[in-house]
């Protein structure tokens, strides 16, 4: 049903820039690009045809993990994307799959490990597209295991990084929701939740389904797919009318599934299932809303596309598939007469009810449950023109048997452009081409609170790692505390104390909780006075501490009494101009910013020497002042010494309060003695 379009006039546009890389900084990375009206973003899943086998109907599933353009003008094919492959079971040799438990027909294996076949780079050459119009039937896939191309094994665990990409991007992108495209993410999120139901539904109805499929399949798989469609529509109607029932039903199904599935998967399924359950009520609402809006605006035929939005599980709920085969057929005819695009949109599913060609990768729900990571991912693709041909190294994958299970492809219904890829449920539709885009069409209507709620629910039922509470940057807390008048400057601390130790001192001596940080020594701080900024819990606590320290005397190990006062800190903002750097008469070139040693035969050097001289002088002054200060301190001690008979300054203090110190804190004598002696004998 191809509707070839001239290769030349295919629209191509880059999306958001990402960064520059490459050895010569000549590679520009992008976050997305638009090709022939469809937007492709990073981590989107795409269907790719093999250009070396143009006749083959087989499409490969890959995820875009990098998009870049070589700025080098001479490069023949400047535009590239890098794809990370997913393997269908049919692409992996049966020998390897032997012993792998319960492979779902629509399961995908994430390529991993080292070697050929993990990822490929394809040219994004607009001169080279194979513009076969195709209708891609929505296909639901699940992936939860990886296929290691190096060792040719199916592994249950997925490494943290695959082909240099953090798996977080491959799984659902839960943590990207903060980004600006919040609405879009909301969608992705909710989609994800709905999608997570799908595998459950699939499993639950697996047997039923197969039974149903058989007769249909043998005659014409079109029926089946149409049945689906019809079912979807039904589901949709149901949705509009009996929302609550549906939700209920679905949850029932879910639990049924849970019971029926193996133990190892139970946990994660449950998590995702329940997570999904709780949000789909919400999601439905908004969906329904959306659909209504859409429907009003759309011509009658296009309504079909709307109705297709149901997710897999919903499809399964509509049990009328068989009964409506006739109707379906009618529809089919109708469909045929529709322009390709509309038909495509009809095929769309997973909330992507936009009539335009769009292909979509819905977010999936990941339950990082130890090793038992269960990733449910759905790739829903809309009709799409062939973007380009991606090359896939399938031939090189050892043990790869392309022909395996190929018959299912042979059954492809060309009229519909739908193929039943393997038996059951997963229909990969495909002609050669593929594409996709995260959908956020009508769903922008979705309100933010939907997302919040969905999020919360999801969190409540998922296993989530405990992370340390994020700490506000010190500067912020300090400014905040100053405003609330609970910031205190402690002086006379031993400069070697650590922030933790200061906190401990405040806790032990003043019985207050606080956050403290030592002020670092610089050339401008008084070297013998250790200072710390302390944030108390409240203004009252701060006041209490200051009064206590002011009226009483808290003697620390260094023999100095602690001094406290409310701290005044510098207002934020630009510091005044720095003196000593001469303003250029004209805006300077880069030389201004370069840093270097000046050479002895320049005026600059002489001026620098003047600064050095000045610096030495002021250092000397500071030293002198410190010396006087210290001697004054010592003077106090000495006077004290003269009035008593003890021999050293510090002993003096210790002896003056012998019972408390000697008895209760014996170590005080030793540490206090050494420290003070050291300090004041200087």
């Amino acid at each position: 049903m191809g509707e070839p379009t001239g290769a030349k006039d295919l629209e191509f546009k880059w999306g958001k820039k990402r960064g520059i890389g490459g050895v010569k900084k000549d590679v520009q990375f992008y976050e997305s690009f638009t090709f022939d009206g469809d937007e492709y973003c990073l981590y989107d899943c795409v269907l790719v045809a093999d250009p070396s086998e143009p006749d083959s109907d087989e499409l490969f599933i890959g995820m875009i993990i990098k998009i870049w353009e070589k700025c080098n003008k001479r490069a023949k094919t400047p535009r590239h994307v890098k794809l990370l492959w997913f393997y269908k079971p049919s692409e992996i040799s049966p020998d390897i799959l032997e012993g792998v438990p319960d492979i779902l027909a629509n399961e995908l294996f994430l390529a991993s490990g080292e070697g050929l076949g993990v990822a490929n780079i394809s040219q994004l050459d607009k001169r080279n597209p194979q513009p076969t119009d195709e209708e891609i039937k929505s296909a639901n896939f699940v992936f939860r295991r990886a296929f290691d191309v190096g060792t040719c094994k199916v592994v249950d665990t997925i490494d943290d990084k695959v082909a240099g990409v953090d798996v977080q991007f491959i799984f659902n992108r839960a943590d990207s929701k903060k980004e600006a495209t919040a609405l879009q993410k909301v969608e992705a999120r909710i989609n994800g939740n709905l999608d997570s139901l799908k595998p459950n539904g699939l499993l639950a109805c697996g047997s039923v389904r197969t039974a149903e499929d058989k007769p249909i399949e043998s005659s014409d798989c079109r029926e089946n797919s149409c049945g689906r469609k019809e079912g979807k529509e039904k589901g949709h109607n149901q949705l509009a009318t009996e929302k609550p029932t549906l939700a209920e039903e679905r949850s029932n199904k879910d639990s049924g599934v849970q019971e029926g599935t193996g133990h190892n998967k139970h946990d994660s399924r449950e998590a995702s299932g329940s997570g999904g359950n709780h949000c789909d009520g919400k999601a439905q609402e908004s969906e329904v809303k959306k659909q209504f809006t859409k429907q009003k605006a759309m011509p009658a035929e296009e309504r079909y596309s709307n109705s297709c939005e149901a997710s897999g599980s919903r499809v399964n709920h509509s049990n009328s598939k068989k009964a409506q085969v006739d109707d379906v057929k009618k529809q089919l005819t109708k469909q045929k007469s529709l322009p390709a695009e509309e038909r495509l949109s009809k095929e769309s599913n997973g909330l992507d009810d936009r009539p335009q060609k769009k292909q979509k990768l819905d977010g999936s729900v990941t339950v990082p449950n130890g090793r038992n990571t269960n990733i449910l991912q759905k790739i829903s693709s809309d009709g799409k023109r062939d973007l380009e041909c991606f090359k896939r190294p399938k031939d090189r994958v050892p043990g790869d048997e392309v022909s395996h299970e190929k018959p299912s492809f042979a059954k492809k219904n060309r009229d519909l452009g739908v193929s039943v890829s393997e038996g059951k449920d997963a229909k990969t539709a495909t002609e050669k081409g593929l594409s996709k885009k995260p959908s956020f069409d009508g769903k922008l209507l979705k309100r933010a609170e939907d997302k919040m709620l969905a999020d919360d629910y999801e969190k409540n039922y998922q296993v989530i790692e405990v992370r340390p509470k994020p700490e506000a940057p010190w500067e912020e807390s300090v400014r905040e505390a100053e405003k609330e008048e609970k910031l205190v400057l402690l002086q006379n601390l031993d400069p070697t104390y650590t922030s933790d130790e200061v906190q401990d001192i405040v806790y032990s001596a003043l019985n207050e909780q606080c956050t403290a940080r030592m002020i670092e020594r610089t050339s401008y701080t008084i070297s013998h006075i250790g200072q710390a900024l302390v944030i108390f819990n409240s203004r009252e606590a701060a006041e209490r501490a200051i009064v206590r320290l002011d009226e009483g005397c808290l003697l620390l190990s260094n023999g100095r009494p602690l001094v406290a006062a409310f701290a005044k800190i510098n207002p934020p903002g630009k510091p005044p101009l720095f003196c000593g750097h001469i303003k250029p008469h004209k805006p300077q070139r880069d030389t201004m910013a370069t840093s270097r040693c000046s050479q002895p035969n320049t005026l600059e050097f002489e001026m620098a020497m003047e600064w050095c001289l000045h610096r030495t002088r002021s250092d000397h002054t500071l030293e002198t002042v410190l010396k006087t200060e210290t001697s004054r301190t010592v003077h106090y001690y000495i006077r004290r010494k003269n009035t008593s008979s003890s021999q050293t300054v510090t002993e003096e203090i210790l002896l003056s309060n012998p019972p408390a110190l000697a008895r209760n804190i014996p170590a005080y004598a030793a540490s206090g003695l050494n420290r003070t002696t050291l300090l004041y004998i200087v």
Partner: protein
Amino acid sequence: MKIWSLNNIAASLIFIMNSADAEYAAFEEKVRRTIFIDNLSPLVTEAVMKKAFDQFGNVTNVRFIMNYTEPNYVPRSALVELENADQVVRILLEIENYPFMISGMPRPVRARAAEAVMFDDRPRKPGRSIHFCWLDQQDPDFKIAKKLKLLTRVHAEEASYMLKRQIAEEEKLAAQQEENLKTNYKKYELIDGIVADGTFDRLARCYNMRPNITDYRLPTSDIRVISYVDYGYSRSTGNGAKVKKLYLASWEG
């Protein structure tokens, strides 16, 4: 059984001590690898610092010391962490010998080896215990302690006064230098003028001298050493090769 559990406790204690020791040792090693840079302009950014010190060694981390309590006109300082302690020694020597300027001239930065107290996140020194006591009001030390507290405040005041004076002096020096530079610039323009209009050559012929003018500039300097004039007395005067060198510089504006 008891012995066992004791052993276990001892083992875990040793383990805890060891890990604290190890942490502190790692910190001390980091301090040795770090250089303290002072007299920085507020315009300096982390990237500038990195670039500046990458000339000497491999910078692994740069962090500016925030100034909360000192007046905000004091120059900034930063800690530059390098790959190893050898690089620190080399940089200190280099900066000692040649004034090193970052993001402006002619005021050079100052470099010193970092100390542990310059890190606000320094770990606890293992094995140290801190003691305190509240002094009794009747205690004769109480008065002394009071005075010491007062003295602390006095010292802080004195220090800030000192700082103010120091900054004022710096400003004076900066103003003076700018003035000098302007004068120099004028001087250069004058000389450039007479060279350009031929007066210089005429005079040289008149006094029978052979001037040698080279115009060159230092590759990285903001100040262009414009002319290097060599007044060589001619042999005819019989005074031998008496050479006078004149350094001229101009702020390139």
